């Protein structure tokens, strides 16, 4: 047995030493981001070669977790855990800016980005991508039963949609939070809870996270759950098409994009305070706004580029719907009320 253990240890040492990188004087740039972040290997190695740098990515959970992790580690040490943060969204924007996490930077090409995305006028962070949180529906369910699609949030409180929608808890899920904010934007701070009360009567299903909602509750996904409507992203139907088992002519799902039904999430990137690699961090932000990266994003993360000149892949366009009007709230207002709103929501819906 002892011989065996030594043998195992020997193999392990070999494995570990095989993983060690060869030492040379390549600098490293560390990017902290959320779990949904992805980019083509090709683009990364291109950037690495061009700038003689090694990119290290840290995925810190969802956006809130990654931000929180950053706040905590930056309080504690002079040099930040990473050089760049990518993935801050408009629901967390004020909160992050209050914490003084970023150094301002105005990258080249910023003038090409539409003003609607530039939510931080001082450019501590710059917009990179956006996506809409909308209700997805199971197309077959509605067409087979000849049920009309709801045309507004208010429609969802009607008896014909009883028990047909599943939403995520805004306290534990970021699309859940976005959807809650959409209802506040739509009905106003005084009346939004009335809508939720009506939805409670109408048997809205509530789960903790997107995975459960989409795969266990939603009938349009492979999990074939009981509810034909789910709070997800406007780009999810495109993903259903692209990641279908057998080539489909159209996506089995679609989004409800009537006015007031979708919430726009804009994602930002920024250079972290006191980074020793300011020059490389600037180049990386430039890279994020470059046409190559902006065109790479849709298929990697199923989000839309903020650069209007970026061309979208055909598959992505076919199944994606862009709502014409989207809801939004002032990010300072969100920062001030977010906890109170979540508490009010939980007190009403989970009791």
């Amino acid at each position, binding site marked *: 047995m002892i011989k065996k253990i030594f043998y195992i240890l020997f193999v392990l040492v070999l494995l570990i030493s095989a993983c060690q990188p060869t030492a040379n004087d390549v600098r490293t740039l560390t990017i902290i981001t959320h779990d949904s972040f992805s980019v083509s290997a090709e683009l990364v190695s291109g950037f690495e070669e061009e700038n003689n740098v090694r990119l290290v990515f840290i995925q810190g959970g969802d956006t809130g977790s990654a931000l929180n992790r950053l706040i905590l580690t930056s309080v504690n040490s002079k040099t930040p855990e990473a050089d760049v943060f990518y993935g801050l969204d408009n629901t967390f924007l004020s909160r992050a800016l209050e914490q003084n996490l970023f150094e301002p930077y105005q990258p080249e090409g910023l003038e090409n980005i539409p003003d609607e995305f530039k939510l931080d006028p001082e450019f501590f962070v710059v917009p990179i991508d956006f996506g809409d949180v909308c209700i997805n529906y199971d197309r077959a369910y509605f067409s087979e039963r000849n049920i009309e699609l709801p045309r507004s949030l208010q429609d969802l409180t009607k008896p014909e949609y009883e028990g047909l929608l599943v939403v995520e808890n805004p306290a534990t899920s970021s699309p859940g939070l976005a959807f809650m904010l959409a209802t506040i934007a739509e009905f106003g701070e005084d009346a939004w809870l009335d809508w939720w009360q009506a939805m409670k009567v109408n048997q809205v299903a509530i789960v903790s996270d997107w995975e459960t909602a*989409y795969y266990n509750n939603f009938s349009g996904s492979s999990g074939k759950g009981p509810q034909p409507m789910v709070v997800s992203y406007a780009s999810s139907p495109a993903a259903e098409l692209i990641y279908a088992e057998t080539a489909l002519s159209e996506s089995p799902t679609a989004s409800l994009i009537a006015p007031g039904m979708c919430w726009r999430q804009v994602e930002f990137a920024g250079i972290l305070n006191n980074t020793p690699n300011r020059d490389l961090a600037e180049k990386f932000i430039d890279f994020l706004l470059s046409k190559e990266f902006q065109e790479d994003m849709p298929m990697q993360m199923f989000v839309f580029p903020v650069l209007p000149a970026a061309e979208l892949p055909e598959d992505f366009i076919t199944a994606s719907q862009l709502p014409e009007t989207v809801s939004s709230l002032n990010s300072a207002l969100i920062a001030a009320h977010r906890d109170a709103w979540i508490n009010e929501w939980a007190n009403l819906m989970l009791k």
Partner: protein
Amino acid sequence: MNRSGSRTWLLWLIPLAFLLFFFYQPLLVIFRQVFSERFNQGWQFFSWEQVTRPLGFTLWQAFLSTLLTLLIGLPAAYLFARFDFPGRKGLRALSLLPFILPTVVVATAFNTLIGPRGWLNVILMNLFNLSSAPINLLNSFSAILLAHVFYNTSIVIRMVGSSLARLNPHYDEAAGVLGANPWRVFKEVSLPLLMPSILGASLLVFLFDFTSFGVVLMLGGPQFATLEVEIYNQAMNRLNLPVAGLLSVVQLAFTLIITLLQNRVNNPRYGKAALGSERKTLMKPKTKLQKLYVVLLSLLVLILFVTPILSLISRSLVTFDAARGERGEVETGLTFRYYTELFQNRSGSVFYANPLAAVRNSLVFSVLTMLIATSMGLIAAYALASSGKFIRWLEPLFMLPLGASAVILGLGFLITFNKAPWTSGAFPIMIPIAHSLIALPFAVRTLLPAIRGIPISLREAALVMGAKPWRVFREVDLPILLRAIIASLAFSFTISLGEFGASSFLSSPQTPTIPVLIYRYISQPGALNYGQALAMSTLLLVTSAAGSLLIEKIRLPGEELF
């Protein structure tokens, strides 16, 4: 152990130092940071209800879950330890599998089985012509209990089973000959002897349920919150670290209290000769009652543990996609598409990982964890088994990692070990270390009853005859401990293999473990992603089954196979 001199005592410091450095240090660092500002601002930052509500629920569900787990686990442990029947070994190995599955996979497995459109409901609906699903377990309190039983029964089977197998059957016989009826034999002979391992197993199960996170969040749904869920919520979503810190102190305190309480009842009162090395206690079921027992319990174990897993595996091999929403032809058939797809980097992502690379990453971490946790556990258990009052008092210290909030400890890790040498280099050494912290209480708890059961007379005889301590260990202790050591190896191996939270926190996205990869697939829409998550889960099951079977094969040189 009074002969064992100062050098042995130094050996005991190793696991202690390990814990102090990797567990108590980061915990103190994070608590200091979280509370330092609060000391000046007073303690009016929370309401008592914020603490009592999750605490009450946590205790209640953990109590019920533990009771149910024992109710099924004890008879099952007896089944595997006493009866020889066809398929015993396979069934026993399968019963360990639930233990490793990440919650998101268990939720999926339950959904494919008892979900509103799972096959059980579909069959029942067709059979009885029902219009709606008769079983509505998901998103309820019952789902939490069911999942806890599903997860933790194997702890009882393994830990109590290893004592049962060492129970000297002559004692039963002797008591019977002396005229005691079977109930009295059980109550006065077997039960007291088994009590340490039963209590030990209950404690672990209770603490596991007490700190339950994923099960409550994903299967119970948003109306239920344990302390751990509330800590996560406060820390990560509300960014309210003081309340999160306070709740995690409460959780730790209760873990300590529970451990101390259990420690008080857990004093072996009987002679140690009663528990010896593993005997050939297996027998074929003879009487009708015994046969019935074997059949019924095997069925129960099969239904409870094996069907959700089989349903998961079968779903990874069968396509339903064309039938989705009843468009076009219904095409269900065997497919390996999900598996072959795993080897393709369709989007050319920089984070793509070959499934075999993920298996390799996971195996490296879990073998390291297995060796660290079991060797540390063995040393610690020896120290705790010794008569020294001081050292026995240290036991809760080794159990506390089970009660630490993963979120708070994780943040502590980040602050404390966020510098060289811990973060430098490409090998995330913190992962096996974090896994070892989780596995260490298991190792200690599994090994301790076995060590306490080593007859002192045997050891003394060997020493008197001039054997060196190492030889005494090898030839007296080791054969007696072997079962327990194997159980500890198997536990720590599987704990590490299935662990998700710490791995996702500490691993780099380019070197994911299997559970991290599963999560990556299931967090994206699309039939292929769903299928790949199931395929990856199957791979996890296969890896774990192969690993535990290999571990079970460990034999001492010269030991007979039975």
